[in-house]
């Protein structure tokens, strides 16, 4: 049983195929549009969520900042209190130390006074017990020391006077020597000047003729001495 395909059939088949295809396309388009709508909705949802997250984050940050400031303030308060406490402790410590020291000094002073008093008493007792002869000897010794001291002072005075006089006389001698030397130099120089003046005056007083005669005389003498 074979199926005979004529033109009508083919046309019908083609029409049917075309219709089916068209329907398929429409269906696909609808699916696409729905999908787009869904995607858009999802995007909007996401945007809303994002906005919410951001809002949450901002509020969270502000909260944190607030908390930080509070913590900082608390810390400052604690620190201030600690410092105050420490200062109070130091003052207290200083006060206590001072008190301790004062009491220690007082104690030492007391002990010292006691000791001094005791020594004084003992010395007084010893002095009371010292024989009269010993006291006399002591006085004599003291007197001798005083005299010796006076002598030493006198000797030192004399020695310094002597040294001064020696230096003075030495300087005086040096001065005398210097004066003598200078006077001798002056006299010598004066003599030289006198000689120069006298010589020049004499030279001027001698005439050219006399000079010539003296030269002639010198030549004669040189001849007689076999110099020429």
């Amino acid at each position: 049983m074979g199926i005979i395909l004529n033109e009508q059939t083919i046309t019908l088949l083609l029409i049917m195929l075309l219709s089916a295809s068209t329907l398929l396309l429409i269906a696909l388009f609808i699916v696409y549009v729905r999908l787009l709508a869904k995607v858009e909705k999802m995007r909007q949802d996401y945007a809303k969520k994002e906005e919410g997250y951001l809002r949450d984050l901002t509020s969270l940050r502000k909260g944190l900042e607030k908390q930080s400031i509070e913590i900082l303030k608390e810390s400052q308060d604690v620190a201030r209190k600690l410092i105050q406490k420490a200062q109070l402790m130091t003052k207290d410590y200083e006060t206590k130390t001072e008190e301790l020291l004062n009491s220690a000094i007082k104690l030492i002073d007391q002990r010292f006074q006691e000791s001094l008093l005791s020594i004084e008493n003992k010395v007084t007792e010893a002095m009371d017990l010292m024989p009269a002869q010993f006291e006399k000897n002591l006085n004599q010794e003291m007197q001798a020391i005083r005299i010796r001291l006076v002598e030493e002072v006198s000797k030192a005075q004399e020695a310094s006077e002597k040294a001064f006089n020696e230096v003075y006389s030495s300087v005086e001698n040096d001065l005398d020597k210097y004066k003598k030397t200078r006077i001798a130099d002056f006299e010598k120089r004066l003599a030289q000047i006198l000689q120069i003046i006298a010589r020049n005056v004499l030279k001027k007083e001698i005439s050219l003729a006399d000079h010539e005669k003296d030269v002639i005389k010198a030549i004669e003498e040189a001849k007689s001495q076999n110099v020429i």
Partner: protein
Amino acid sequence: MSFKIFDEVRTVDDALKIEGELLLLKDSIYKKKGLTFLETLQNKVSKSIYDFIVFSCKNDLSNYDLIISQIEEIIAQLKKIPVVIVKIGFEPTYSQIIKISNFLSQTVGEKVLIDILFDPQIISGAEIIKDGKYYDGTTNKEFYDALLAQTKTVPREGDFLIGRLK
């Protein structure tokens, strides 16, 4: 004739001047530039030298060999004249120099050149020096002796060098 030149030479300075003129004359014979021999003879030397050259070459002024030998002979003779140094304390006149020079040559017994040196330290008289020998013929010693008799201060030897020009 050459003796006329020697008559004019009394001092060392005179001898040096004559020698200089003779050397100039001799050089002019060799030189091709500058003054000729004849120009030098006529203008640059003294009359005594001129006369001597003219006489010695017997008017033949082109006889250079003879002229050169004569010049050299005169210079050699000038250098042979003994020199006597006379140190004096005054500045003599030219006539005094002639007198002293003549007397010196006469006393020595030969021609001598006198070299007069001025020494302001010398009062009068002269110091005579010849061939290394020295004679003090000044009156300085007498003067200082007389002065010393008046002053007790004895001057040092070097004191008399004050103001010396030497």
